[in-house]
């Protein structure tokens, strides 16, 4: 039986990276292929372990760890309107920019006063907001957050969303100040503006 000792070492590396979501994103972007191979091998090896030696309790613990590893890094994407998801042409998408080189991630923490993620999502992946939100056309106010190595900043923006459009929240940090704005992904033009955070 192939003992997945090396896999366990790799697992601990990923778990360590999970402590810092920027690192995780960086890690996944740069090593996506390696990550898939690792996940596939780990699945196969754990199945082998289950068939041969591992107790049921051990297997459950392994599955929990794996779920946390896999779902913990899944960037939250949230629909911010009630009911069924409408067609892409009838909704708008607002994304936060991920600057992997700078280990900076921008998330949307609130849309029209509503939190985008719940506490369990925050705990699972150390996320402070959603990286992508789906909204119905119309005016929306949002609170955005930029997280880098050891600092963060909040911004409050508004946009009049048009159906089928995608908007990106971008940020620029100068000294100790962060400026955030929205851009239309298709045209690359700045859109909307800043608003109060209430």
């Amino acid at each position, binding site marked *: 039986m192939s003992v997945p000792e090396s896999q366990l070492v790799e697992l601990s590396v990923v778990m360590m990276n999970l402590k810092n979501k920027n690192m995780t994103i960086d890690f996944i972007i740069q090593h996506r292929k390696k990550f898939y191979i690792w996940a596939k091998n780990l699945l196969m090896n754990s199945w082998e372990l289950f068939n041969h030696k591992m107790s049921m309790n051990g297997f459950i613990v392994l599955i929990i760890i794996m779920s946390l590893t896999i779902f913990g890094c899944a960037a939250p994407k949230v629909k911010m309107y009630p009911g069924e998801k409408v067609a892409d042409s009838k909704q708008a998408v607002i994304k936060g920019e991920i600057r992997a080189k700078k*280990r900076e991630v921008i998330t949307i923490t609130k849309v029209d006063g509503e939190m985008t993620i719940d506490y369990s999502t925050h705990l699972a992946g150390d996320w402070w907001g959603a990286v992508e939100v789906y909204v119905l056309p119309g005016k929306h106010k949002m609170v955005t957050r930029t997280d*880098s*190595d050891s*600092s963060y900043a909040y911004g409050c923006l508004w946009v009049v969303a048009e159906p089928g459009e995608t908007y990106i929240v971008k940020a620029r*940090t*100068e*000294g100790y100040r962060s400026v955030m704005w929205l851009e239309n992904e298709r045209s690359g033009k700045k859109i909307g503006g800043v608003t109060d955070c209430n």
Partner: protein
Amino acid sequence: MNNKALSQRKTYSLHFIVLIALISLLFYGCVLPKAQMYPGERVEDRKQAVIRVEELKEDFSKIGISKVDDEWVFKYITTFSTSDLVSEVYVLPGKHRIVTSMAIHHFLFTSHARSNLWLVAEPGGKYVVKTVLKGRRVQMWIENERTGKPVGGIVGSDDEP
């Protein structure tokens, strides 16, 4: 118990209290050391820059510089110290990255914060790392002591040289 034995016991107790006080002072009461972050002899003040950390007004708090240009400062501490932080560093002019660490001891737990800042030090320059606590948030920045204006920025900022 006779008087002599009682007096001897009192003396021992006093010695014990003094010893405990001394140990406590060593561990908690001492001022953080200073470190010269370049090799060789110390250069004149006008040819180096000084970066110091402003102490917090909070009780049971400790703040200091832990890294300069990715080098741990404790390697450069020449005096006896139980801490791995320093209150002041001497650097040569140029761009430097400073990591400051902060800890506030509460009754049952300790809160920690860390900042990763950069600055371009000028010869003879004096800089101070300022800290403001706002609820659960901590803001840290570097100020030029002479002008009182913020200098440098957060590591990774778009204007970092």
